[in-house]
């Protein structure tokens, strides 16, 4: 909206001035001729019977200029307004619509919803249908997901709890080149509701998980990684945007930890 408004007045003067220029040029020769009528005279130059023909050409020429300009301005204005409308529409599209539009994403919420159901927290090792898991039953403790970059595999039982809280979990094959690992870590470090760890037995070099969503890619430069994070981080939370990512397990190791008894801080 704000773009099109300044665009309007800016453009309109050019329209007006094109109309003015010939009009301003005319009066001078006309005044000398003594009659304000023959507009075509400056261009036709001659007198006599040719006069009627020349104005026709002039008026035709004058008609097309403004029309073309009008159309151009109109198209431009419509384009600006249209783009603004489209952009704001795209921007306000719900996150799940945007996520579903990512090429190659697997939406388990749609394809296999029941695999995400669970009764209550469970301790000990658990088996998951998807590798890496994207939801379902999990440990009472979540893996810390305050932008944590784990350099060794972590327990899925904790990571799934992090997914429930809205985290995006990036996993990669342990043999992924270091520069690619660093690139991924750069998307995680310092970003709340993000965690990352190597994962044994991946069928693709990199796999991204959110609660009920998965995307597997070959390369850390894949643009879809950023899209996945943008669309699903926090949004995919089952418990709303303020579910906790701190106070979780910060240790690595694929065996879920039993929470340690701590002395009450009374």
């Amino acid at each position: 909206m704000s773009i099109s408004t300044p665009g309007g007045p800016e453009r309109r003067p050019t329209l007006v001035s094109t109309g003015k220029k010939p009009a301003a040029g005319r009066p001078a020769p006309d005044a000398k001729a003594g009659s304000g009528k023959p507009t075509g005279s400056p261009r036709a130059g001659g007198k006599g019977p040719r006069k009627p023909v020349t104005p026709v050409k002039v008026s035709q020429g004058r008609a097309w200029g403004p029309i073309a300009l009008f159309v151009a301005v109109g198209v431009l204005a419509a384009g600006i307004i249209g783009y603004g409308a489209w952009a704001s529409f795209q921007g306000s599209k719900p996150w799940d619509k945007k996520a579903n539009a990512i090429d190659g994403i697997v939406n388990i919420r749609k394809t296999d919803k029941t695999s995400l159901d669970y009764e209550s927290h469970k301790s000990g090792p658990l088996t998951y249908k998807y590798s890496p898991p994207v939801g379902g039953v999990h440990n009472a403790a979540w893996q810390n997901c305050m932008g944590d970059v784990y350099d060794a595999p972590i327990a899925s039982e904790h990571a799934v709890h992090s997914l429930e809280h809205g985290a995006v979990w990036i996993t990669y094959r342990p043999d992924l080149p270091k520069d690619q690992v660093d690139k991924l870590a750069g998307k995680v470090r310092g970003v709340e509701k993000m965690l990352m760890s190597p994962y044994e037995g991946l069928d693709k070099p990199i796999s991204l998980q959110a609660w009920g969503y998965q995307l597997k890619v070959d390369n850390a430069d894949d643009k879809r990684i950023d899209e996945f994070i943008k669309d699903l981080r926090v949004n995919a939370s089952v418990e709303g945007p303020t579910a906790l990512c701190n106070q979780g397990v910060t240790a690595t190791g694929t065996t879920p930890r039993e929470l340690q008894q701590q002395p009450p801080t009374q």
Partner: protein
Amino acid sequence: MTAPTTTDTEYDETQPAPHEGGRAPARRYGVLALAALLVVGLLLGYAGGLLTPRLTRPGDASVEAGFARDMTTHHAQAVEMSLIAYRSATLPEVRQIAVDIATGQQGEIGAMQTWLREWGLSPTGSKPPMSWMSDGATVKDGLMPGMATPQQMAALRDAKGIEVDRQFLTLMYAHHLGGIHMIDAALGETDNAEVVRVAETMKATQQSELNNLRQLQAQAKG
């Protein structure tokens, strides 16, 4: 036929010359009028876009406002109970779920308070609690459904050891049941998309927490 037409056109074509001077300004005015119309149209649209949400947002006596105010109070007690459990409970799982409940509900309080500000309403209402619910007769001693009495809260604060876990689990279980009752009432009466979205998340969270609380109750008994 042909002859008259040619003369006509010739006349028409000669005519424009004298009128040309008058036509350009006319066209100019047309352009100006069009520009003005466009600007007025844009302004109208802008004004409409500004006003519509204002006219359609929930009012002071609405279900949405009542829900936001009362659920804030309801949540606030859950935050207090949870932080006591986070500090003093014995079972690590109880402390873990307690901190999750505390921060989650405190966050939801923030969302609900933001609604009230956006709707231009006070966080405090002039009507008694729960009056927005059609079966609003469920307030006992000023307490909304599921809320712990002052005596129960005092006992929880004074409890030691596993007794903290047990009391917290009992109180929080009842608290969630009452909360879900209130959420259901709001969901039944509002069509505000944002309120529905948050209320449904709240309900799903509290329902899954009920299962976990019940499981921990069994654990705390032994």
